[in-house]
């Protein structure tokens, strides 16, 4: 999978000109490799990618891809994706038309001194504590990419054991139609 270019002057989760593709695919072996391979081959940059079954029958999956629309014209990315036989439907969403959310999970080391500061940060970010022991706290935030960025920056002050983000999923805002179907 293409490694994203370093985006200068912007936060880690907001590429200069990103676009969200919500791609419905047949849930067949290798379909993710087909998509990743296509992006790598054509020099399209993937910023993040999230995959999950799209229906109970397990026949389809939805892949939410945040693409760097500077690396190639969106029309090309869509056009080439569309040629993959297992791709059933592509919806694209401009960031301003999209409700974007992602999940952040982090385990942070705490001691007597830092425990309260971590809890404050969690409260301030509207995050939740999901696990604790004597030395660590695991917390979770489901929020906008910007909120996840902000929390991630705050947590840098503490000794982090692990921090994972899922990459975003998105739906069109109810107030706007998707740009194209």
């Amino acid at each position: 999978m293409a490694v994203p270019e370093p985006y200068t002057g912007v936060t880690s989760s907001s590429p200069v000109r990103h676009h969200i593709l919500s791609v419905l695919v047949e849930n067949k072996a290798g379909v993710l490799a087909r998509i990743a391979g296509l992006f790598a081959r054509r020099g399209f940059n993937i910023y993040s990618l999230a995959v999950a079954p799209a229906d109970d029958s397990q026949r389809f999956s939805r892949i939410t891809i945040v693409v760097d629309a500077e690396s190639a014209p969106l029309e090309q990315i869509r056009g080439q994706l569309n040629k993959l036989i297992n791709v059933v439907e592509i919806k694209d969403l401009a960031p301003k038309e999209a409700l974007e959310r992602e999940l952040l999970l982090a385990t942070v080391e705490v001691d007597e001194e830092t425990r309260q500061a971590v809890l404050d940060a969690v409260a301030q970010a509207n995050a939740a504590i999901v696990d604790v022991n004597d030395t660590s706290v695991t917390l979770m935030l489901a929020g906008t990419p910007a909120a996840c960025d902000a929390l991630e920056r705050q947590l840098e002050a503490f000794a982090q054991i692990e921090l994972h983000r899922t990459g975003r999923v998105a739906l069109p805002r109810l107030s706007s139609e998707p740009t194209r179907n």
Partner: protein
Amino acid sequence: MQLTGAQALIKSLEQMGVDTIFGLPGGAILPVYDPLIDSSIRHILVRHEQGAGHMAEGYAMATGRPGVAMVTSGPGATNIVTPIANAHMDSTPLVVITGQVPTANIGTDAFQECDITGITMGITKHNFLVTTAHEIPRAVAAAFYIATTGRPGPVLIDVPKDVTQAMMEWWWPETIEDLDLPGYHPESAIDGSLIAEAAALIAAAERPLLYVGGGVLKSRASAELLAFAERTNIPVVTTLMARGAFPDSHRLHLGMPGMHGMYAAVTAMQQSDLLITLGARFDDRVTGRLDGFAPHAKIIHADIDAAEFNKIRQADVAIRGQIKDTLLALDAATTHVGDIAPWWKTIDAWRDEFPLAYDPQDPAAQLRPQAIIEAIAARAKPGTIVTSGVGQHQMWAAQHWQYEIPGTWINSGGAGTMGFGVPAAIGAKAGHPDRTVWCIDGDGCFQMTAQELVTARAEGIPIKVAILNNAYLGMVRQWQEMFYEERYSEVYLSPDLPDYVMWAESMGCVGLRARTMEEAIAAIDLANTINDVPVVIDFRTDASEKVFPMVPSGATNDEILVHPSQRGA
């Protein structure tokens, strides 16, 4: 009816109307070779799997029907990767069946295991790993459907050995829905409003040009193209992949554009104010340096593949659909064309001043390759099919032979695969046993796949091969001469190592040699009388001969170099 997976596979191929398979067996595909004995399908046993792939391509390009190749797993499968990539670049419909290790062994580095679906993901239109015998009919039917519809291309079916050995209840997918391809919608109706826009551009153009690509052949739209061109009087160029889509002898035809295109064709593209682009893709070999390509032209771009639009050159009107339908609609909508008489005057002046040129053949001097091609062409029956390898000989064969009908020029365009010519000729002849097939080959190319002449002899496929033996990797030599100060690096091959005549004879072919024009004519005439075995002629040609015109790589098409005899002082 209970069948083994192998029987179902062969029966499915029969169901698809397959008459010929090019292949070579091995462990993982063994079960499928057994029911083949009882099938009406002809199997052509190749000597190298690359040969099977190119034969299937030649068959497909000559007949318009998908070519079928079958090979074993591991090295058998990797040997056919080059033809698959080649077919992908040139949009040739191919169905390639590969054996695979038993499903239980997949992922264990089993003997002759290789991830061929992974390897070919980027060079097939689609591929399948079949995991149950029940799925075989659907996989085969879907493979043919995908390979032949929309923009054609190669499809690979990987079949594990246990799947071909398992039993299944025979069934056949009767409808498109049965193929279960919810994401595949190859055809689309022509948008009438775009046709009207295109017709308006045509009406307003002063220097229109029909830029014809291989898609016209794929869409079988030559008759519609001829009708439209004749009615509108718009000049035509045919790319390397489209030679034969429009008669070379026609007054409206300016010839091939591109790096080694005709001066008038290249320059007309440069100066055009409207390129009516039909099934072509603005390949870099056609455009030259892109920022200097056809700077004044508006673009109408018609293609079945929407991803071609605005990929290289922004279109003013992009029309998705079969070229045949587009041409019919365009013909109906084009009520008038601007006054293009001045445009024709300019074009005719280019044609007069810069026809295709080469130094005349001096009877005492070494053979001129162009003269050889013209001599073969002059003695060929109408409908003769020409294949070629890749290099100078390919460009001369594209330039100096007059292609009048579709499917008579078969070459490797997008990939430029040396060694394509001989096996492609065998495949073309297998598809059209009644037609004469000449392979115009280079000595370098011939050495890459010549062993398939054994196949040709054994299977009774009497092709004719003209080796333009310049003792060099000539095209590379030409670049080194022109752009690397004549510093020749690893391009010399020797004229007589191997001895092509002895080699041909050892493969059961007739081997001939010609050093003079007189010998050349005699050899061609003799070859034309031989119809039972393949013939190979070793023409000793002048190594210093270069292909002109030429647009140097990285230059714009305005910097085209014509033949030295045509350059002013």
